[in-house]
């Protein structure tokens, strides 16, 4: 272990952080937005809606991301049709090729994760929404989606971490993110251990931050769902507050005697 090279790596590799994070989170954000409607289609009982989505997720989950990246970067670049069209202003840039490949791949994974969440929403909740007269769209938006995202969150964190690590593949199409810089440094120093250990540590640190952030989100979302539950199971009965306790069934608690008094005084004076 050569500490001088490790130190050099420690100073060089963080320059790739911005690109790694930009690629990862841009692809995740785009993938998340696209996968919401796709997940509903995929969970639909209508085969005309679910089968095309299944074909897409099957193709993109069933082939290596590196192959998809090469097909998009080198494959599409070979077609004169694309090269002569306006698409080329985007596709000639390695960043956008990586973004497109990562988004397509992430969308496929996220769609399946959300589909699992949607199908795990208790039937009773959906039926209750229908009984309240909510439309199909409103049921999906107000009931099914918020519940399914909570159910799917732990699985989605895996996708986020997976995408972070997969962003290292961008180094194969000349992008200098963390791994790209690491490979460049290895080629200058011939010291793969020191450099890749530092690169690995950077990814570990990012993964730690991501898991912590999602844990906080998970706890935050878990909180409000407990309270209505608690009320429904009769906590109200276990902690009666004599001052507010209704005297008769259905009667309003007599609040005026206690809290509104100062106001009354002001009105009088």
């Amino acid at each position: 272990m050569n500490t001088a090279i490790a130190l050099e790596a420690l100073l060089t590799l963080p320059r790739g952080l911005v690109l790694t994070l930009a690629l990862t989170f841009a692809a995740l954000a785009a993938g998340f937005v696209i996968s919401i409607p796709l997940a509903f289609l995929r969970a639909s009982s209508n085969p005309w809606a679910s089968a095309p989505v299944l074909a897409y997720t099957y193709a993109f989950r069933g082939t290596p991301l590196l192959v998809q990246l090469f097909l998009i970067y080198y494959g599409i670049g070979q077609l004169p049709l694309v090269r002569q069209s306006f698409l080329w202003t985007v596709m000639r840039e390695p960043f956008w090729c990586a973004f497109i490949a990562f988004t397509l791949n992430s969308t496929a994974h996220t769609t399946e994760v959300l589909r699992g969440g949607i199908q795990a929403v208790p039937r009773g909740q959906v039926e209750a929404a229908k009984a309240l007269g909510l439309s199909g769209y409103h049921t999906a938006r107000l009931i099914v989606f918020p519940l399914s995202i909570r159910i799917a969150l732990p699985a989605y964190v895996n996708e986020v971490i997976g995408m972070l690590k997969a962003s290292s593949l961008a180094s194969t199409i000349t992008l200098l993110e963390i791994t790209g810089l690491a490979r460049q440094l290895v080629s200058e120093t011939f010291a793969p251990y020191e450099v890749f250990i530092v690169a690995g540590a950077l990814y570990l640190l990012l993964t730690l931050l991501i898991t912590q952030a999602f844990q906080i989100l998970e706890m935050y979302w878990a909180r409000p769902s407990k309270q209505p539950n608690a009320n429904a199971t009769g906590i109200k009965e276990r902690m009666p507050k004599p001052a507010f306790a209704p005297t008769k069934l259905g009667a309003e608690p007599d609040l005026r005697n206690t809290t509104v008094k100062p106001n009354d005084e002001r009105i009088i004076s």
Partner: protein
Amino acid sequence: MKRTFLLALCALVICANNLGAMDRKTLTIASEGASPPWNAINAEGELAGFDIDVARDLCRRMNVECTFVPQDWDGIIPALTVGKFDAIISGMAITEKRKKSIAFSRPYAGGFNQLVIRKDVNLPPTDTAIKLNLTNIDTPKQAVIDQLRAALTGKNLGVLRSSNSEAVLNELFGKVATIRSYDSQDSMHLDLVAERIDGGLADYFTWKAFLDSKDGGIAMLYGPQLSGGLWGPGVGVGLRKDDRELLAAFDSAIDDATRDGTLKRLSEQWFQIDISPHASN
């Protein structure tokens, strides 16, 4: 039981590694297999090229049996130092920086690098037949470099990752042009044809194979023939530093092959010109 077996196996491996070079009956030689005509993978999926023919000849002279393994350029030196194979014969230039990690035999060939530019970029014409040795850069040499620098300002240039060309390109044009590093020469050719890059710097003979191909018509050689400087005295066999006997064996075999004209013959066969050490001395 299992542990005894493992210990025995370890002992065997260590013994095998401690055998002196000349006691060795077999050698594993790595080559990139992606830089024709130096080395390439042929239609049968085997390594072939100038490097491979030279290696076969040297092995015959050293009286050892050689097996060849393809190894990506990026990582070929670390793989040698950890013992994945015994020698690198892959058009590798002898440089001071590489000498810090591995040992080199005496050169078995010389060579030079040149820029290639897409024809439709429309750069001012240059003389591609003049030679420019980067070892001692004086005023006239600097003038040629400045002229190239002006022409290449704002261009995208490709280069093979981990190569000396990468270091030279960064040093000469890194400030004025965008440098993109590729894993293999083939990937760089694809991006040159796709117009993602305007040109690149690589070994002349590697370019020639591409320029003579169907796709290569879109590009042309540009600027002088570059050598010396970071490229060092020529191309040698890369070996582990502690393999002294093997180094001595390779040196004497290369000497013999230079003297009896084998290297000249192979060079003319693969490159159409003589780039053997005999010619460059």
